[in-house]
């Protein structure tokens, strides 16, 4: 559909340069490619000229991605079974073994790095990212091995390279749209797009141009598709919302991590023939094998609000598809292609829900990562914490202890109300092994706050901040650390009534983040409101009343009554009421609360209600001439809800371990 002949020609020149570079002993190349620059095309061209080993990692969000990379290396090195034989395998040791074999065989390795998501670090991909980075470091440290790393501009690459190259994405104009390659509505849509591009001079990246054609085929006007990739993806999702069957087919395509042969597309996705071009030429691309760019996949999957049954169904279908290609229940003895299909099958089985459970259980896991993936699914998606804990325990039993397994074993046991000692052991191990991991430290500290000793909790906090941000640079740079560490720790202190400790944690956070970030702002509100009430000996404001509004102006009283000015006012609360009298506390200033008792008649005059009905928060005002008035103040709810904390902690008192 796109005529990329001239771009391919320019890529060939680049391939020539790369080939030359990779012939130098020990070359280490970094190719920074823009989204849509054709990384796979480049590798494909290079493969025709050299005996390359290509490692194409799945997404950073897929926990099995490092294992995938290792299997690609090992099968290419012809040593998969050797890798599987090593007792209690270590990913990095195995990577080193394979890399050495490839270096000995003088075979260059090309690594296609996953495309990282924009934004701050996320727990969902941090572990995979770290492990892939560690694997990459092993490859790059292997002196004789030639390595080329293809990554986007924003991918973090820490190592030194012998040469760095840049690849920009081509821009597609009307001249590059070849409508004749597409049938029916899609051909017409491509024509419309070309016409509009010619008229307006619009240029798109190839990924954008494909989505634009798809959107026009789905009914959009060409004028409505002059957008960048993310916006196009969102629009695509809106269109798919009107076509549920097509939406299911798209989901299946998006969840397929490897290229799907065109001839299998219909069977795999269930797409109806007239709509197949949407999958093969608009969302996906490729002549014989259709792949979806990771960026397109990310933005579409994020925007598609896929239900869990639909997702599970899509995974089950994909698992079935890959099973037809691997025919195995373990990795042992498989060649490269079958091994990849087996890994894909296990990946989809692990996310495929109940209908995949039996088959998943029949597979012999090739590494921790496959168990982690299933454990995370059971925990995060199904909230089957006990089952998830069993998976992590199995992982430890099979492959030896590791911080990820032990942390999430503890995490799931905690939610399944397992034994505190087991939970402690798991969190402690992970925290000690990865002292710089803010999520693991945070959960360890929170555990200690509730179930350890105060001294342990405070020491763990000091230890964590010393490791994670010893000089406060990260805290000053962005609110990220405060939101992922300080917020959670302070919240837990607050949940057990430790105001001073909560305050101490929040004191570390720059004032700016406390004001700008709503979660932090609400937490500060709760802490301060409780401090205020404790110091005052009373609550005279509903907990949710903003601090800035307290004692600054009345909320319910009018400034004048019958032309008479208010001369004094105070917030207050009814503490006792009967048919005879009402006892209240009022605080004319933030420094002192005072108790007053009104007889029933006086109260009726002040508040306009019977004494026995008196309740809640109010404002008492006094006007020129001596008139006094009581007006109720609505009780706002607490802002930073601690229900989650309490729902975790209360059962630790009133229920027994199962």
């Amino acid at each position, binding site marked *: 559909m796109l005529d990329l002949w001239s771009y391919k020609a320019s890529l060939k020149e680049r391939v020539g340069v790369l080939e030359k570079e990779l012939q130098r002993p020990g070359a280490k190349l970094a190719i920074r490619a823009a989204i849509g620059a054709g990384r796979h095309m480049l590798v494909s061209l290079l493969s025709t000229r050299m005996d390359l080993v290509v490692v194409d990692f799945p997404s950073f969000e897929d926990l099995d991605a490092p294992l995938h990379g290792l299997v690609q290396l090992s099968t290419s090195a012809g040593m998969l079974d050797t890798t599987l034989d090593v007792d209690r395998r270590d990913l990095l040791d195995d990577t080193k073994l394979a890399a050495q074999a490839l270096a000995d065989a003088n075979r260059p390795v090309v690594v296609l790095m996953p495309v990282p998501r924009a934004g701050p670090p996320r727990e969902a991909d941090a572990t995979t990212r770290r492990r892939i980075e560690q694997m990459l470091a092993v490859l790059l440290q292997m002196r004789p091995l030639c390595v080329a790393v293809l990554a986007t501009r924003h991918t973090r690459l820490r190592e030194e390279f012998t040469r760095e190259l840049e690849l920009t994405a081509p821009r597609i104009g009307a001249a590059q749209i070849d409508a004749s390659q597409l049938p029916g509505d899609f051909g017409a849509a491509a024509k419309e797009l070309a016409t509009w591009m010619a008229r307006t001079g619009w240029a798109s990246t190839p990924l954008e141009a494909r989505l634009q054609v798809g959107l026009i085929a789905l009914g959009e006007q060409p004028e409505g598709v002059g957008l960048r990739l993310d916006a196009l993806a969102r629009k695509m999702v809106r269109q798919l919302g009107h076509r549920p069957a097509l939406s299911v087919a798209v989901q299946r395509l998006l969840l397929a991590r490897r290229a799907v042969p065109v001839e299998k597309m219909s069977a795999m996705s269930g797409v109806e023939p007239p709509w197949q071009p949407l999958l093969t030429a608009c969302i996906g691309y490729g002549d014989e094998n259709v792949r979806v760019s990771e960026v397109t996949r990310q933005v579409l999957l994020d925007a598609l609000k896929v239900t869990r049954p639909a997702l599970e169904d899509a995974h089950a279908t994909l698992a079935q598809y890959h099973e037809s290609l691997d025919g195995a229940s373990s990795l042992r003895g498989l060649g490269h292609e079958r091994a990849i299909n087996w890994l894909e099958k296990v990946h989809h089985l692990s996310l495929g829900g109940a209908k995949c459970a039996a088959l998943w259980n029949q597979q012999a896991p090739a590494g921790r990562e496959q168990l982690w993936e299933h454990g995370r699914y059971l925990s995060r998606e199904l909230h089957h914490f006990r089952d998830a804990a069993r998976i992590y325990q199995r992982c430890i039993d099979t492959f030896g202890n590791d911080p990820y397994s032990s942390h999430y074993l503890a995490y799931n046991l905690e939610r399944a109300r397992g034994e505190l000692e087991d939970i402690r052991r798991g969190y402690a191990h992970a925290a000690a092994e990865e002292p710089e991991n803010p999520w693991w430290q945070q959960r360890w500290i929170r555990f200690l706050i509730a179930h350890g000793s105060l001294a342990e909790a405070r020491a763990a906090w000091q230890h964590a901040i010393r490791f994670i941000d010893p000089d406060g640079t990260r805290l000053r740079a962005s609110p990220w650390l405060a939101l992922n560490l300080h917020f959670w720790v302070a919240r837990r202190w607050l949940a057990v009534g430790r105001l001073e400790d909560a305050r101490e944690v929040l004191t570390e956070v720059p004032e700016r983040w406390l004001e700008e970030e709503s979660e932090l702002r609400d937490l500060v509100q709760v802490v301060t409101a409780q401090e205020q009430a404790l110091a005052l000996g009373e609550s005279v404001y*509903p907990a949710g009343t903003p601090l800035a509004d307290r004692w600054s102006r009345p909320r319910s009283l009018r400034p004048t009554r019958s032309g008479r000015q208010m001369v004094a006012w105070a917030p207050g609360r009814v503490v006792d009421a009967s048919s005879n009298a009402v006892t209240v506390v009022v605080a004319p200033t933030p420094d002192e609360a005072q108790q007053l008792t009104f007889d029933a008649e006086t109260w009726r005059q002040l508040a306009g209600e019977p004494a026995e009905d008196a309740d809640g928060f109010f404002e008492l005002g006094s006007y020129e001439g001596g008139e006094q008035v009581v007006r109720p103040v609505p009780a706002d709810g607490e802002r930073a809800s601690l229900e989650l904390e309490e729902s975790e902690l209360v059962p630790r008192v*009133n229920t027994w371990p199962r």
Partner: protein
Amino acid sequence: MASVALDGLGVPLDRSLLHVFVAGPGYGEGIAVALPDRGWLVMDGCRVATGRLPLLGILDRWRAPEEPVEALLLTHPHTDHAFGIRDVIETAVPRHIGLTTSPSSPAVVFAAFEAELAAASADSLEQLRRRVVLEAMLAIRRRFDAAPGDLLALVDGAQLPLTHRHVSAFVRAPDAALVHRRLTERHRGDPNELSAVVELVFGATRIVLGSDLPAVDSHGALLPAGWHAVLKRHRHLGDHHGLKIPHHGSPAAFHPDLMTVGRGRTWWISPFNRGKRLPPTGPDGLPRLVALNGEVSLTATPRARAAQPVHLDPAMVRVADLPSLFTAANPFRPDAFSVTPPAVEPLDAVWCGAFDDRGTLHGAWRGVCAFVVVP
């Protein structure tokens, strides 16, 4: 007997005597008892504005290294008694932990611990109360799981297992059947009704620690498990040498058979300023108690730090002068009185009395904010 400053109470204590420390900084109450010879008993806990804990201050200063805390008692799960329970458990490692529960199935107290603690409330202090209690209960539950036998059921008829030969500690309330019923039926009554009353007997000396047990409800109706019932069973409690006045001196906790007419006895009050509980200057407040006993020892005046009087020796305030301590400048009513707890140091709002085994008070020491009300 004239009191002297707490600073004058030597270290080590004269361990031929029974020392009763009552801490009450205006919100909360804690009692520490140094038993003759050796060992301590700790009841409840409170905190001062800085978050520091008077009872830990007392133990740090007067408890000998390695000296055991025989028992920590949480007389009832209210914040003003639950502050620092976890701290005492962790730092003093009491041999036993007592709380009001069914003696036949002590774990019922945990099962009855309701998720109502998580219910929404717009009252910041109420929210805090729930969380402080939650922390105390988590700590107690942890200990129970580790050593179920360490948990004591504080019900009428129970005797604390002190290793001390000369002192006995009896629980005189609440009634065991009532506790079982309340906890198993998850009845949402006022936890004060389940307050544990403890009687210490040292030779001829009797000290009654009244916790927060009331006599009547807020409408004046007699409570079936209140003081009326307790004194029916244990009339001798009115014959005592030291009494920690129940429920911070609330008129609702007054009972004539407990607060009998007499002289030479020590009555302590830890003021509690919240709600309608402070014994103010009205006829059913402090004046009545002073008239009955001749004097009453208050651990503090409920005033903010700025207005907190430091009482110089002999630290006696006449009933007639009381209003000047409590009355606040209020723009609405002249009879308002302050309820803000004083900002004090941990040992400022503390009374200590030392008794021999013949009922004689050998010394009284006070923190700088504590004082005696006299006629």
